[in-house]
């Protein structure tokens, strides 16, 4: 086993990506979005889970991209896919049919039960901020066998009450009988639902993060697990694989696009 990287050697965003990648197992079938979830899934594939199966909603099944796509339908995904199928089949025959093990979600807002908003800030008919909307999120939340949320936490994103519920992850909403996200991976650590009510509580912190920091990032009174785990810091090979992936990505997309989210 390789040693852990020194604390100064990694950023919180890298830790987030690595923490998410560790949740994936070899052979699992992941419904992947762009941004951090894509980085986490591809990192897992390049490290401990070489046979992880990546499914993008663009219809690319079993892709093995060498660089991270900027969009969910980049040519890289099609070229390296086992096959490319029509989008309606992805949603009906794979996601809805329960053939996806893990779905990742992001959002502008999350509530204490893991419900998500990526639609609007403010009233729907007169929003202060119009967000992109649901895309695949509503059905990922309902039909993936398990879901994880990746999100940078702040009192604006972790709210007691959503402006709009794009994805309902609470009890009763999931066809699989689940209870919403298995975990919310933030930039300070990981929240998981408590067994009784499904309310998110602080389960684990990254090295260097504190309970106080976590509480300051969440606009509801955050419950804390009896024992808060400290997550293993990035291992050198995780960090090396992630940084090499990101360097290849920057080189492929050009300097300007590296500024994109």
């Amino acid at each position, binding site marked *: 086993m390789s040693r852990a990287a020194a604390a100064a050697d990694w950023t919180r965003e890298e830790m987030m990506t690595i923490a998410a990648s560790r949740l994936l197992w070899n052979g699992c079938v992941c419904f992947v979005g*762009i941004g951090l979830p894509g980085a986490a899934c591809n990192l897992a594939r390049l490290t401990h889970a070489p046979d992880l199966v990546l499914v993008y909603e*663009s*219809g690319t099944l079993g892709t093995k991209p060498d660089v991270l796509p900027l*969009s969910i*339908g980049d040519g890289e995904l099609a070229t390296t896919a086992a096959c490319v199928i029509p*989008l309606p089949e992805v949603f*009906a025959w794979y996601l809805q049919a329960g053939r996806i093990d893990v779905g990742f979600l992001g959002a502008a807002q999350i509530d204490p039960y893991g419900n998500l908003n990526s639609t609007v800030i403010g009233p729907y008919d007169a929003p202060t901020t119009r967000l*992109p909307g649901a895309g695949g999120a509503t059905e990922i939340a309902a039909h993936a066998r398990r879901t994880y949320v990746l999100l940078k936490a702040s009192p604006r994103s972790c709210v007691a009450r959503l402006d709009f519920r794009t994805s309902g992850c*609470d009890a009763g909403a999931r066809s699989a009988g689940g209870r919403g996200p298995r975990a919310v991976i933030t930039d300070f650590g990981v929240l998981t639902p408590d067994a009784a009510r499904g309310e998110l509580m602080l389960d684990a912190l990254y090295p260097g993060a504190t309970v106080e920091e976590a509480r300051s990032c969440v606009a509801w009174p955050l419950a804390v697990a009896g024992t808060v785990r400290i997550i293993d810091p990035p291992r050198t090979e995780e960090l090396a694989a992630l940084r090499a992936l990101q360097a290849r990505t920057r080189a492929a997309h050009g300097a*300007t696009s590296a500024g994109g989210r």
Partner: protein
Amino acid sequence: MPVLSLCTAIEQYVPDGCCAALEGFTHLIPFAAGHEIIRQRRRDLHLVRMTPDLVYDQMIGMGCASRLTFSWGGNPGVGSLHRLRDAVERGWPLPLALDEHTHAGMAAAYAAGAARLPFGVLRGYVGSDLPNVNPRIRSVRCPYTGESLATVPAINPDVTILHAQRADRAGNVALQGIVGAQREAALAAKALVVTVEEIVDRFPPMMNSVLLPHWVVSAVVLAPRGAWPSYAHGYYARDNAFYVRWDAIARDRDSFLAWMREHVLAGSVA
């Protein structure tokens, strides 16, 4: 199946007030056709598209649309569509009514449209507020199990416009790579216009390839690079840098209008 100029095809198939779907999921987005619609100053269009992307940001910002049916309206990998946001948040240049769905809902609606069924069924919209704001999302009871399932009304655009790699002289159209909901959107439409990179004399038999047969195609338009800044697999790559640049161009009304004047209204796309 005639081969038309882009100008003639848009004049003939995209009248003011019609319902138009320019489809293509990240790949093969018919930008050239969208620009021609802008140049012809169409008004009051009902635009349909799963992912509005830059092409609808441009059409909405130029005042072509009064209604949008969609399921994800962002600049992929970059952020917001600022012109779409300006229309929704501040009604500039015109208010824009929204029929908002999820991807799964839009896919089911196109598939129902292609089959000429009046509605599509899915296990969808579960636990979401979307049915509260879109009264067209309804439900039906299963005649076997009694359970309730979500429904969406079929989408049958007056015209669907696609971009594809190739057509042959007979008007068969071949697509390669990511196909999104293009076939469903094409077959759901009352008319189908396809811009292509190339027209070849004839295709070899294509077996299991993705082909739209000539008798479902209303018109073919030769439009090389007609999907730029999106891409055409086998012809050119996605201009990711332009998608990033668009964020700055579109953030501001004046810079947006200046870009459109220079690159679209003047007739040549940079």
